[in-house]
């Protein structure tokens, strides 16, 4: 309920401001944007763009988790690997999206692979560090206990390492899912062939400001939805770690 009031107040402020500014190019009124919004959600173009963005987001998410997990695991169990990879990942963490762009366009031009690669590269460091710290934090006493009882490597991996990485992974997942769409849209805008980001780029090119705003609302809704979804997912999975409370 409060959420709804918040939105109402937001729209009210927006409306007042748009009346004051009175320029379609800077701030179109909520009504104008709303009309465009309802127009575009009835076009196939938008839904195709959305499918394309979600597809890229999904692939990027899976790749990030997969690579982050493998790298992070080795960084966690091998101090040497950690020391070698930490500076590299730290550098990666601070490279702006725009710099990856040069490399990616040079490699693949405009298309699907570019946005995916950029997204993976920007989300990977955090995920990898989360896994590495989880593995590093695995209780030494429990590992020793497993050794005394001759527990198999497979079980140690599954029950001890995964168990202690779990909560770290889930927090990382929450952070990643919050940033995923932002990065996807920006990279689409810069080097994509289709997707929501590309739609925004076109609208901007035709100086169709109400459409830019309408697409932004669409992106925001998508972001909130995916964050809620991942929170739900995390909640269901956290059941296994509910010992904490």
């Amino acid at each position, binding site marked *: 309920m409060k959420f709804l009031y918040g939105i109402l107040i937001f729209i009210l402020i927006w409306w007042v401001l748009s009346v004051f500014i009175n320029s379609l190019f800077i701030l179109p009124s909520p009504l104008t944007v709303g009309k465009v919004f309802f127009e575009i959600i009835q076009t196939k173009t938008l839904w195709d763009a959305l499918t394309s963005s979600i597809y890229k987001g999904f692939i990027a998410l899976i790749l990030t988790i997969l690579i982050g997990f493998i790298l992070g695991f080795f960084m966690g169990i091998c101090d040497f690997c950690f020391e070698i990879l930490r500076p590299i990942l730290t550098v990666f963490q601070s490279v702006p999206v725009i710099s990856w762009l040069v490399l990616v366009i040079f490699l693949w031009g405009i298309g699907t692979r570019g946005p995916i690669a950029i997204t993976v590269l920007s989300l990977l460091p955090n995920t990898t560090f989360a896994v590495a710290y989880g593995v590093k934090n695995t209780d030494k*006493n*429990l590992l*020793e*206990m*497993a*050794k*005394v*009882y001759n*527990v198999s490597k497979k*079980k140690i991996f599954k*029950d*001890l390492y995964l*168990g202690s990485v*779990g909560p770290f992974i889930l927090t990382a997942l929450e952070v990643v899912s919050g940033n995923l769409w932002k990065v996807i849209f920006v990279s689409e805008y810069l080097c994509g062939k289709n997707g929501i980001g590309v739609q925004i780029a076109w609208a901007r090119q035709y100086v169709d400001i109400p459409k830019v705003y309408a697409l932004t609302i669409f992106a925001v809704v998508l972001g909130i939805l995916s964050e809620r979804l991942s929170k739900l997912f995390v909640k269901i999975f956290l059941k*296994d*770690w*509910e*010992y*904490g409370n």
Partner: protein
Amino acid sequence: MVIKLENINKSFGKLKVIENISFSLSKGEKLVLLGPSGCGKTTLLRIIAGLESFEGIVIKNFKKLGYVFQEPRIIPWKTIYKNLKFVEENDKKIENILKTLKIYEFKDYYPNKLSGGMKQRVNLSRALVIEPDLLLLDEPFASLDIHIKWNIINDLLNEWRKRNFSMIMVTHDIKEAIMLGDRILVLSNRPSKIIKEYIISEKINEEKLTREIIELWTHEVKA
């Protein structure tokens, strides 16, 4: 003979912890190493379990080792049942040992819901479920109420009568040592060495023995 230690020495850097300890353990025997806090008891058990380097000779003649750690070392994100499943696949064995140790009804509890006494019961049942030939116990009943302590020791002894494994328990508690041991080796302050050996029989005078051991430790401090 289940295990034999010959002239075991151990130092952590400059800190000498164990000095020339030798003893052997026969099958089915309950041996207690009784020593003051910080003398090196845990270190000695860790040497036996193969977790610590040392000088000297350890001859092992057993297959399965159960180790009741000083801290419970239970996996916090697993239920009691799953904690035992971590070391033993056989469900029947798990159920039986949980029943023997009277924690079967709590089998689906997570460890954080358990009292200290129950955690020690889990720690103990994990060591017993694998049907060990040698059981190591590191001050397993310290910090438990006396009646809980008695109860757990009784349950442990019941299992021992059934299966006749050998035990080495270390403790600083003289009463506990007399309760459980067939034989007590008294250890000195750090570095530990064996300063006295007692065979415990039915007719033992507990008070006299207690006074004697305290005397030993006090003299040893003066020396």
